[in-house]
């Protein structure tokens, strides 16, 4: 995984709540068997509207998506994270993320930042009044900084460490081989096996 320490970029204001993963990447894109090439599917349906924020020249090249509450609800498709990253987003800010989406984002190095709605509103207003304004998302200090906005955010220490170091979860887990083997040895015999009977 790519490490995340700090990132500075322009804000793309997405004034919507309940942005589900079907909106982020529609199902017909999920037939691909790779982790790349999803950028054209990002918000595919909304992008047909010329007024949609991603179609506005002023927001081209923005890297920090700021959205309303309940971002990433619905399907567990990790393709939603890949689509955001493939398009160029480095961080997403929302007052509340769906759990599976959040887990997926942190495993791919897309930083999801939870900030209160008032701060999200301040970032929206900033980006709408000055699309060239930059925001810094600093994972080292756990801070979001922009003109007129300074906000601390929470992220559990373990997830933060993995992101800062860009660690591979599977390699970390495999260091616990003995604990896994010990657990396997004491599993009850009545637990089912999938092998064909």
């Amino acid at each position, binding site marked *: 995984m790519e490490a995340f320490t700090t990132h500075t970029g322009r804000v793309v204001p997405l*004034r*919507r*709540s*309940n942005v*589900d993963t*079907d*909106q982020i990447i*529609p*199902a*017909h894109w*999920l*037939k*691909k*068997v*790779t*982790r790349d090439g999803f950028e054209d599917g990002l918000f595919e*349906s909304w992008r047909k509207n010329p007024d949609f924020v991603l179609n506005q020249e002023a927001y081209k090249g923005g890297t920090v998506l700021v959205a*309303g*509450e*309940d971002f990433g*609800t*619905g*399907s*567990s*498709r*990790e*393709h939603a*994270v890949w689509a955001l990253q493939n398009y160029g987003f480095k961080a997403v800010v929302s007052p*509340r993320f*769906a*759990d*599976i989406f959040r*887990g*997926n984002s942190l*495993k*791919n190095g897309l930083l999801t930042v939870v900030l209160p709605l008032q701060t999200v509103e301040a970032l929206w207003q900033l980006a709408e009044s000055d699309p060239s304004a930059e925001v810094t998302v600093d994972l080292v200090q756990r801070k979001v900084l922009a003109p007129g906005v300074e906000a601390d955010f929470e992220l*559990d220490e*373990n*997830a933060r460490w993995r992101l800062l170091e860009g660690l591979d*979860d*599977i390699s970390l*887990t*495999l260091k*616990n081989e003995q*604990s*896994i083997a*010990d*657990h*396997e040895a004491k*599993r*009850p*015999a*009545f*637990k*089912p*096996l*999938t*092998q*064909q*009977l």
Partner: protein
Amino acid sequence: MGRTLAEKVWDDHVVRRAEGEPDLLFIDLHLLHEVTSPQAFDGLRQNGRRVRRTDLTIATEDHNTPTLDIDKPIADPVSRTQLETLRKNCADFGVRLHPLGDVEQGVVHVVGPQLGLTQPGMTVVCGDSHTSTHGAFGALAFGIGTSQVEHVLATQTLTMAPFRTMAVTVNGELPEDVTAKDLILAIIAKIGTGGGQGYVIEYRGEAIEKLSVEARMTICNMSIEAGARAGMIAPDETTIAYVQGRDHAPQGADWDAAVEYWKTLRTDDDAVFDHEVVIEGADLAPFVTWGTNPGQGVPLSESVPDPASFEDPSAQLAAEKALEYMGLTAGQPLREVDVDTVFVGSCTNGRIEDLRSAAAVMEGRQVAERTRMLVVPGSVRVALQAVEEGLDKVFTAAGAEWRHAGCSMCLGMNPDQLQPGERAASTSNRNFEGRQGKGGRTHLVSPQVAAATAVLGHLASPADLSDVREPAGV
């Protein structure tokens, strides 16, 4: 202090616990399908890893599979490649697969329970958010992303952040015309699409205890629509009877040991939930969604709400956008909303009881002229059972289309899709914009409401049908 059901199951699966780190949990059952697994198998290959426990892993094909002409090559080359990729991955890594055409093929969350692979007290994961379905057995079941699929394939474990516990208690009895689907839609409308975030929900109370295991699956299935990490129902005699005798159910002394363990899987009387919600079963009625998220629902007897009636400005804005997308007007009675397509199926409502209840409404009646109806069994086994009971004939005689098993129009990854502007009453789980096809408009309903809607051509419940049944035997 006592522990909740979820905490008991969690604790029994902790492989490693360390201060400041998420617990490492052992996974008892890993279900795979074609859409969320290819990149995970690629990751294994790149790192020279194997599947640690092929004997705890099983795959089927469901999301992409056609429901017509399944004996012919799949027309969409991209879908075909994805299915072929799963077949190659399962062959290369030694994973049991039930492909299209196999008698055990079907929607992954229908297949696991019907094989008896889903049992109380297990940890179950799948790269699919509706894995919460398996919580109906008192299993702790999570939907996961592809990185986690790879992690489970490689290690048979998952690191999981701690969760909070929520009790949703449903008192009393449900009225006769109220189904598990109506109940869960009402619960989601009450707590909201983000209300369950961070929680494992335990559904309990008299109304829940009286539900069949299949109805319980409908409830737990949609826990994710309330944002919950998982949904669970404590195993009881109903659960035990459902598991007994299935292919992978324990036998002999193992059965006795299993049942003894399962009976300990109840929330202790002195356990404390982090949050509690209480619902009176008697207050409920057939429910339908009017918007574009599953929390935007009301009783069918009501009208489309006025966005201005919502206090929260973001709910107001969401309602305005939803009405615009859905082509509805505030104040319009829901029963007057005409419907083009009715879909009966999915991991939410594609099991035999669902087909029986829809068929009971359709018997001797006809699908309205303006409407088409698709009935898609959740699995080949469900389809065979339905044929044995003659349900397929009830549907086809009524003018409905009887299809092969799969996810189908629930998410429209195969050719079963809505056209732009087309309106559906669907027994599936998501009414998101474009979920069932670009520009399609979805109302989530129970199988009974779906069937009554098909007959009348507008949103309706069986109670609206009294005069349109042809004499019995016709």
